[in-house]
């Protein structure tokens, strides 16, 4: 691509980002998703505070990290659905075909979508900071450095979630199929995680031979799911803060960046290969 081509591509990415970003910002869905995540966090925090019985103590390093984790899960679900339907909706409505007659390429289009969602997440991260600071003032639960780190690492996890959603969207042609695939895959991840955890607690001696086979197969599948599911990055990111060591924290950020690059690149190639029609 020549210099003019790159400049055009960058320009179209910027325009797409701006258009999508403002559209999301002026809609209610964005605020409702944050509201729901905060409502659930408030419920957890209320239970936590009521768990400190009268005339009693509770020892914790990061009491606000778990509510943040739950908020992140809800916001990730919102982001992954928004990303997953974004391309297929444009395909279904035919706007993608129109766009691609202009100076819009697969990469500029996808990057536009990615940056839009990332900008939205940065605003969400701002909301998180304000909310948890407010929680700290109201309840006296400490707004710790670890919480700041958790909010920072959540930006990279959001990046994984968004690129995963875009990847699903690039694979499908219609909004309905995007959502069905997404829900199917997420339920699949959940089922594998659930059964792997269930089997992990049972020693091989207590299992029949074919259940041992199932256990081993699940372990192998889980190993791969652990690298593919964006929610694994979320739980690992939160764990890395709890561990208190910088190495897993930085490693998780690095893995998230690699994950984003791999999934965005794959999405661009799939979009190119499958074309713009639904």
């Amino acid at each position, binding site marked *: 691509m020549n210099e003019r081509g790159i400049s055009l591509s960058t320009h179209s990415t910027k325009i797409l980002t701006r258009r999508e970003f403002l559209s999301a*910002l*002026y809609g*209610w869905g*964005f*605020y*409702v998703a*944050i*509201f729901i995540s*905060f*409502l659930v*966090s*408030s419920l957890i*925090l*209320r239970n936590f*505070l*009521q768990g*400190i*019985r*009268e*005339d*009693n*103590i*509770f*020892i*914790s*390093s*990061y*009491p606000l990290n778990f509510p943040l984790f739950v908020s992140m899960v809800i916001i990730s679900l919102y982001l992954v659905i928004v990303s997953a339907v974004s391309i297929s909706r444009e395909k279904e409505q035919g706007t993608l075909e129109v766009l691609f007659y202009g100076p819009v390429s697969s990469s500029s289009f996808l990057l536009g979508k990615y940056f839009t969602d990332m900008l939205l997440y940065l605003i969400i991260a701002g*909301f998180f900071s*304000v*909310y948890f600071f*407010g*929680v700290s003032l*109201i*309840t*006296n*639960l*400490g707004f*710790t450095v*670890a919480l700041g780190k958790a909010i920072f690492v959540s930006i990279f996890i959001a990046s994984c979630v968004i690129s995963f959603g875009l990847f699903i969207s690039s694979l499908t042609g219609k909004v309905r199929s995007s959502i069905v695939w997404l829900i199917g895959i997420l339920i699949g991840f959940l089922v594998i995680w659930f059964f792997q955890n269930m089997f992990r607690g*049972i*020693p091989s*001696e*207590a299992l029949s031979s*074919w259940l041992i086979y199932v256990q081993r197969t699940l372990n192998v599948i889980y190993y791969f799911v652990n690298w593919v599911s964006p929610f694994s990055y979320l739980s690992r990111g939160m*764990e*890395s803060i709890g*561990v*208190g*060591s910088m190495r*897993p924290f930085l490693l998780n950020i690095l893995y998230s960046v690699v994950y984003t690059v791999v999934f965005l690149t794959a999405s661009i190639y799939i979009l190119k290969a499958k074309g713009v029609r639904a």
Partner: protein
Amino acid sequence: MKLKNLLLTCAALVFLTLTPQPGLTQEEKPAISLAPLLQEQLVYSFNVFDGKGWSGGFVPKSEDTIYLIANKDNALSAKKTLVYFWPITARYMAGWRTLNEDMQGTLEILKDGKLIDKLEKQDTVLSYPEGYWAEITLFYTAEEATEWHKRYKDAVDKYYEALSKFYEARAEYTRKMDEFFEQIRKRREAGEEGPLDIEIPREPEPPTGPDFYVTEPTRNYVINLPVGEYEIRLRADDGTIVEGSEKNLVVFTARRRGGVGYEIIPGNRWTAEEQCNDPADAIYAAGRNLLYFRPYQQDEYNELYHNKLLDPQNEGMKENWKWVHTQPLENVYLLFYSQDRLLERIDKRPYKVEQIPGAELGYNIVEFAPEYPGDKPTFEGQQLILSEELARKDYRIYLEDKEENTIISGSEREIRLAKKENVNFLYYLSFFPLIIGGIVFTFRRRKVKK
């Protein structure tokens, strides 16, 4: 087609698994038996340094790695025993009473496949200088082991000798007491009145037993290695490697040393102590609290390695770290601060838990004052009262060295008084994004109208 076949096979398998066996009625079904299936195994029994003292256990065949702390003496011994799986605890257990055969030979230590050391068995003992139930354990090897055991045996012999003399003296005392009462009776009967000038026999004092304990010497391989990964194997006297004796050896050390941890005994549930070990830990308190602090020195170890060291069948996360209390911190004051202002300097005191008389449950924790010889306090600690009237919501505690008057590094902890009364305001805070959304929406509508 292939997928269809696969699905049919899976369905058939599920059907076969769920279908009950034909021909077996309820009465004919065998009763559940939990008689363990014993299997002869070569295992390693150990007494290893756990960061505080020495603790024992065994490594079954299922575990291929032994974990040790670096630069400390650890006793290892290869044994043949009967191992069984106990499903209730999901652990392998050793039937030492049925079979406990010491394996003879030389223990070889290898690093990167090269033989670096050969160990022969030597005598080892565990010594408990403050008694078997106290916290301190020491480990002695070779001549020192024999010497300490002899010292203990001598102390025990001396005690029994003294006890024998005591019983004789006690018998003599009983006899003298009988004579004493007889004399009194006779003189009173003879008409004597007033105080009688008869010497009262003195009761003999029972001897006290040895205040320390040393185990019987056992012959073990003593391993003391720097940090690293090794392999071990047992070479029999005929020169062959004993089957099943090859194990990996992970020798690790503490990541951080000399930290300060606290055991906190809440006054309202003194048997359920809390741990406040991580320097990032904050103590959240509600209402009025009476807390007793017991500070400890602690080292931080890898959770997986340390859990496996205590019991090779334990689990843990390699990414996690855990604090291990090494010894109580004596000669310190607990300082209670509000911002930069010292509110209280608290010294350690002994306390006794006294049950409330009557059928009702309840107890009082009172400062200990011995009521009879040998009376001991329930626990010792620094008492901190967190009253509801405390003006601020954030406090800090530190430890101060009594001799040097300096704050002990790593002893700082935050105490936060949780505002439970504000808990419902959290819901109002959740509406904050909707308010922002409303503002943006209104702003957008006005802009569009213009």
